[in-house]
């Protein structure tokens, strides 16, 4: 099944003084179970592309289909539900809620979905177990290392059992060892549970995790390797 499809997608940022073509006529198809790595120099439009797939932003022109659903015409409520139920986000800067414990951070997407307290606690604990942080579940983000925070973020991204995992430089702020740990967890989700992963990086050593690589330059797809 085709979980992500971009048709002729362009994104132009307009400011008062200039116009930036962040993406230009991008066509892309990603199948269920793929592990796609998007690479490219800084400013090439990687994050822009990921944000469009994640329904956080809308293209200037073109179509974005998620799970076969055309997202242009969806209401804010429908987009929110799509993000909540189908997509998991992992950010470079972890973006955990500072006032919530690790466990509560993982519970949060399930709270938004209205899952019962008992069920979401059970699931959050299980997910923290998967990322190896069961013992740290009551700690606040500022009491965790960067690697640990990113692993909590992964557990949070997996909370509502998403089909697609979007990762924007997940290892960008981590040392090699923590980075590998994080990548192994993501890879495991992809291989064992068939989660589609789309990962943005400019670290060439991460290329090995993907089954294909999309190279971006100046807002255009320069080439696709593998797949």
């Amino acid at each position, binding site marked *: 099944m085709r979980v992500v499809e971009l048709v002729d997608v362009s994104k132009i940022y307009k400011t008062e003084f200039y116009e930036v073509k962040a993406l230009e006529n991008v066509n892309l198809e990603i199948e269920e179970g793929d592990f796609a790595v998007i690479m490219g120099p800084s400013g090439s439009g990687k994050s822009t592309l990921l944000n469009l797939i994640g329904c956080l932003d809308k293209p200037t022109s073109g179509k974005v289909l998620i799970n076969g659903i055309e997202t242009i015409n969806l209401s804010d409520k429908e987009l929110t539900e799509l993000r909540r139920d189908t997509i998991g986000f992992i950010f470079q800067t972890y973006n955990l809620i500072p*006032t919530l414990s690790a466990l509560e951070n993982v519970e949060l997407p399930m709270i*938004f979905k209205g899952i019962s307290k008992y069920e979401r606690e059970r699931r959050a604990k299980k997910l923290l177990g998967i990322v190896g942080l069961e013992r740290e579940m009551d700690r606040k983000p500022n009491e965790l290392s960067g690697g640990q925070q990113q692993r909590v973020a992964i557990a949070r991204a997996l909370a509502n059992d998403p089909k697609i995992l979007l990762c924007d430089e997940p290892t960008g702020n981590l040392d090699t060892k923590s980075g590998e740990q994080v990548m192994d967890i993501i890879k495991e989700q992809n291989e064992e549970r068939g989660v589609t992963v789309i990962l943005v990086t400019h670290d060439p050593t991460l290329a090995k995790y993907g089954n294909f690589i999309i190279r971006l330059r100046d807002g255009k797809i320069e080439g696709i390797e593998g797949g």
Partner: protein
Amino acid sequence: MYLELARRNLQRAKVRSLLAVIGILIGVMAVSAIGIFGESLKATVLENFEDVANELIVGPNYYAGYRYVDEKDVNQIEKLPYVKSAIPVKSDTLLVESKKLKAYLQIYGLSEKDAEELFDAEKGVIRLKGSCVVGKNLADTGDIKVNSKITINGREFRVAGILEDTGARFDINPNTAVIISQDDFSKISDKGYTMVIVKADRLDHVDNVKKAIEERLNSREDKVYVFELSIILERINEAFAQINTFLMAIASISLLVAGVSILNIMLMSTIERTKEIGVMRAIGAYRVTILKIFLLEAVILGIIGSSIGSVLSLAGGYAIDYIILQNVKYVFQPGTLFYLILGFSVGLTTAVVSGLYPAWRASRLEPIEALRFE
């Protein structure tokens, strides 16, 4: 859970939250304490009118050609339900002379029993057999003492008693009155009953009595008019309600200030947490959820500030009553509860209204813009 999240966010900025609470608290206190004071002031004033509140005065309808209320009608009134007593009064303006005084004064003809029911003697006794009683002011200005002699319309009376000053009355002013028996009255004046003082058994039966009298006596022609003294109480109540509203409006300016400070605090908070809002939107929070989270913070601030404010306003009301009225017995009356609840609701409303705009703004943020915010 959202409640818990809101609580923690407020705790994160302790000083700021505390300031907001204090703002609301002072505002609520000002409004409630002034309300309580106004209510006590009213109660203190009304206290003086309490004895006369259940009275009705029945007089002849001059415009229909009646000069007096006749005996038969008085008897009818007496027999009506809810009537405790009906006191017929004759009155006339007659020349009163004593050693120091020569004046035309209002002379009342009353039975001794009725006079005793209406008045108390400060000096001497209320005895009307060939004697009279006079009001205190009159006694003072005319240098009249118990056992003095005065002449009314040329007829001599011994002063048996001087009436106690009982505060304001609307039927007979005891301070300047001269009261004699009805027998004596008919010897010096040819006037009949100029009014009947009717007392209802209970305050809330006054209207029933009024209706009954009008039905019975005015069935064919408007022979009498009926004037309820409780109307005066209503007027006093109204006047005080207006004064109180005005005072509280002034007090609520302090609440306005508190509202602005909450607005400010919440706006700062939403700006600081822009990125957090973006994250929550990204992982599946609806706009209304964001609205709810921020509004809840305002509600918590409002509830804490308003409850403490309400409790403190009781102390505030007590203090104002003590200082201005030198009397705190009216602080703990049912009306006080009303002002506590009013203060609480106004405080809470202020908090919610001020929180509404920042919360709405937070909920309108586009997820991508919010996420990019550093």
